[in-house]
């Protein structure tokens, strides 16, 4: 309605009131001065402090994480190195063992070969000796036999030929 609009304008909504302006200014200034000291200063500085605290906590967490990662990396490297070391040691040990085994077997073979050779030599010598002994024995026996034959029967020349033949036969059959 038109009348209410006129009332709104007439009613003094926009009327200046120096008293109210004065009191508002005074009240607000007092509030500002008191609260600046008692409230906003402590609260703002506390908020800043907390923000700094949170920031430093975050920073510390980051550095701790970095450190942990570095340690983990180092551990992994150490582990890898240890693995490699162990591998190397095992390989070396294996090599050494192989070598030793080969050497030992070779040596044993050599030994056995030597032993066989020496045994063979000995056998040969023994055989030769036995043959010699046998030959002498046979010769002696033959001579004795011949003596007997000669003494009893035939002349000496015929006897000799027979003995020689015998000896030859023996010699050829020896080998």
């Amino acid at each position, binding site marked *: 309605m038109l009348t209410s609009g006129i009332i709104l304008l007439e*009613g003094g*909504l926009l009327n*200046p009131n*120096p008293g109210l302006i004065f*009191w*508002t*200014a005074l009240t607000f200034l007092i509030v*500002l001065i*008191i609260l600046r000291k008692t409230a906003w200063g*402590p609260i703002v500085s506390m908020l800043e402090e907390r923000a700094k605290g949170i920031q430093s906590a975050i920073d510390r967490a980051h550095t701790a994480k970095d450190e942990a990662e570095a340690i983990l990396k180092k551990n992994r490297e150490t582990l890898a190195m240890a693995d490699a070391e162990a591998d190397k040691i095992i390989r070396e040990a294996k090599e050494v063992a192989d070598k030793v085994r080969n050497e030992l077997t070779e040596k044993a073979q050599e030994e056995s070969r030597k032993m066989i050779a020496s045994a063979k030599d000995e056998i040969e010598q023994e055989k030769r000796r036995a043959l010699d002994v046998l030959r002498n024995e046979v010769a002696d026996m033959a001579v004795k036999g011949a003596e007997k034959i000669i003494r009893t029967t035939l002349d000496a020349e015929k006897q000799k030929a027979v003995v020689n033949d015998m000896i030859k036969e023996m010699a050829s059959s020896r080998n």
Partner: protein
Amino acid sequence: MRKKAISRILALVVPVLLSLNSQAFATSVQGESPVTGSAVEAIHAAPSTVAAPAAEAAAGHAEVAAAHGEAAHGEEKPGDLIMHHILDSHTFVFEPFGEVHLPHLEIAGFDISITKHVVMLWIAAILLIIIASAAGAAAKKMSAKDAPKGVANLLESLVDFIANDVARPNIGHGYERFMPYLLSVFFFILLCNLLGLIPYSATATGNINVTLTLSIFTFIVTQFSAFKAQGVKGYLQHLTAGTHWALWIIMVPIEVLGQFTKPFALTIRLFANMTAGHIIILSLFFISFILKSYIVAVAVSIPFAIFIYLLELFVAFLQAYVFTMLSALFIGLATAHSDGHDGHELEASGHH
């Protein structure tokens, strides 16, 4: 579906409209003006009770009615009653219980009476000082590791909001200097707005003198910080807006005027917002008195008034925020004017 809804609305509205002249719903006898006045008057106490004594109503409103020259008619207009609620006065009316007359003071020809709005300002100031000082004391005791709690926590989140979402983005570097002012303005306006929503109280921020004073503070802070940041030379250069000297005759008045439009806008915005909400709530109540209908009161006035009241709660926060944000913005524009038209000298002098 829609037809059904419309018919339902009609079923609601038609009896309301019919009851306009119906004696069944009306409480007063036509032509007997003081009783009608009492019916209208009863809104002060409670909108649904329409049985306040006529004598008390007449006493409470003799002053207003006389002031507006409406007494001759013998019947008070709703407009007068609304204005009585919105405007400042020398009496605090607690309707069914009585009223408190506030003292008149006059110093050197100036009327500095303690009025209703002055009392509301003081209540807001005392409350603010108590609450904020308690929070400040709690903040002082607290180490960085403690979690905040209670009132300190609430205040702290608002302080943090003003610091990081209002002051820092708008002012930028060196915003800490203006924090006490911005915080005080924000909480003072917020408390005044919220106190205005309590029954029997008044909205101090709905008075143009209060908002004018507050925006004058912003104006002073803005101008001083501009002088401090730019010096006299920079300040005057800013007034020319960096244009050719031939344009100065146009630019200087525009820029000077621009300095004053900012606090003016602040003044009107806060005042109009706070006043408008209250006028709407009261007008919604008066609809039921003008129509003399209970149905209108129950179906229209009360639900809508509750809705507007809740909206007003939001507006109380919003307008406190807007005032603070614009103050910060104006301070920011005045101090760190390096991205504007006259930013080259400032950049050269290593301002940023």
